[in-house]
């Protein structure tokens, strides 16, 4: 279930969110999307500065996905229905970005500038492969972060967004002839397995 293609994504920036995002991608690359949830959960359990901290991380994730679909529509030579799908998903990610920015401001935080991203998407195959890996990573990240959120309304909002990420992941997996739901739970590893995975990822 590992997704080495995630190594092809570059996330620039020195913010805490950018660090956790790079970690999540490294864990996803080495162990698959299911490993991302416990990794993110652990990151926030150890040093969360509250809900705004988690929202800011979610924002960096959504900005990455928005940038990914924009790059794919521009560079992956997509056609017809698949191009429409990428365009629709990108528009949904853009709305997630807007909602998260507004919520962060509402709770007294600052959304900050979007980090720069680079993706290796040049054709339909690389779009599907990386899209699946990214959306699976997003699902794991939200599911991992959700139990660390204090405000009930923000848990609901995270749930409303992550279900859409899961739907994106499944649809792209169908297009790529992969299993749309690779596991019965979108959270594969136990806490101790996750810690081992994170250690290995940060060492490598």
């Amino acid at each position, binding site marked *: 279930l590992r997704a080495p293609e995630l190594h092809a994504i570059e996330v620039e920036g020195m913010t805490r969110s950018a660090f956790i995002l790079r970690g999540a991608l490294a864990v996803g690359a080495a162990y698959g999307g299911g490993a991302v949830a416990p990794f993110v959960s652990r990151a926030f359990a150890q040093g969360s500065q509250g809900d705004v901290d988690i929202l800011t991380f979610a924002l960096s994730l959504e900005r990455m996905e928005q940038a990914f679909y924009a790059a794919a529509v521009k560079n992956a030579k997509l056609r017809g229905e698949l191009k429409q799908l990428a365009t629709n998903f990108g528009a949904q990610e853009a709305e997630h970005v807007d909602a998260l920015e507004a919520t962060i401001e509402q709770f007294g935080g600052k959304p900050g500038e979007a980090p720069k991203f680079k993706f290796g998407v040049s054709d339909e195959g690389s779009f599907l492969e990386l899209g699946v890996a990214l959306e699976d990573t997003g699902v794991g990240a939200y599911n991992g972060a959700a139990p660390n959120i204090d405000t009930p309304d923000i848990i*609901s909002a995270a749930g409303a967004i992550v279900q859409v990420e899961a739907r994106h*992941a499944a649809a792209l997996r169908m297009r790529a002839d992969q299993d749309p739901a690779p596991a019965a739970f979108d959270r594969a590893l136990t806490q101790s397995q996750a810690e081992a995975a994170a250690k290995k990822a940060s060492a490598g």
Partner: protein
Amino acid sequence: MQQTETDQTMRASAVDELAADASSRKRFLKALGGTAAAGAAASLLAACGEDKRVPLTPGGSNPNTGAGAGTDQYGNGDLGIVRYAIVLEYLEADFYAAANKSGKLKGRASELAKTFGQQEDQHVKRLEEAIAKLGGQPPEKSRGEFPLDTQQQILEFAAGIESLGAAALLAQVDRIQDKELLATAISIHTVEGRHAAAIAELLGEDPAPQVFATPTQASDVLNQLHRITTGNQF
């Protein structure tokens, strides 16, 4: 002003400000796409006495009479939520078992229904463990009447019950107190979302029709389930 359970939960959070300021409440709802927080905000409004009706608890019960329309009828708090959630999972597991036996599914639809059925069985098992851990007993299974005449019929029903299952769990995630249970519930919820999207793809429908997934409250879910268990469809 009546102190309901919702009221107390809200008080402990940063949502305090929203209760005092109608315009910031509107902005918040707009920011969330007007869907996710609508239920919570409705309870908030009710708790603040803008409505003459008796505010229900988040579990859907009348706090004065105990009459329940939601998860409270399955038990208090987390136990009620899990016993309620397993009702849906039982039905989904039974449905896939019947669909797989029907002989009407071919090709990818048949493969997916087998996989999804096994995954629903695992959800049932995990929720039964959670119920036992909370010191409860699983509720009685109710028998569903499923449309199984054609592949199209089966897939349409599957799309409906998976979306309902995802929406039902989504409506509970902000009420669950135990964090491990929340992690389980939200990750079952995303798998139901994946199932719904995959079936939509098979049917040639939009796999992600909403920007923000909408929750369905327990009383509405139970009304829909009642129609299924009495042989009527969605």
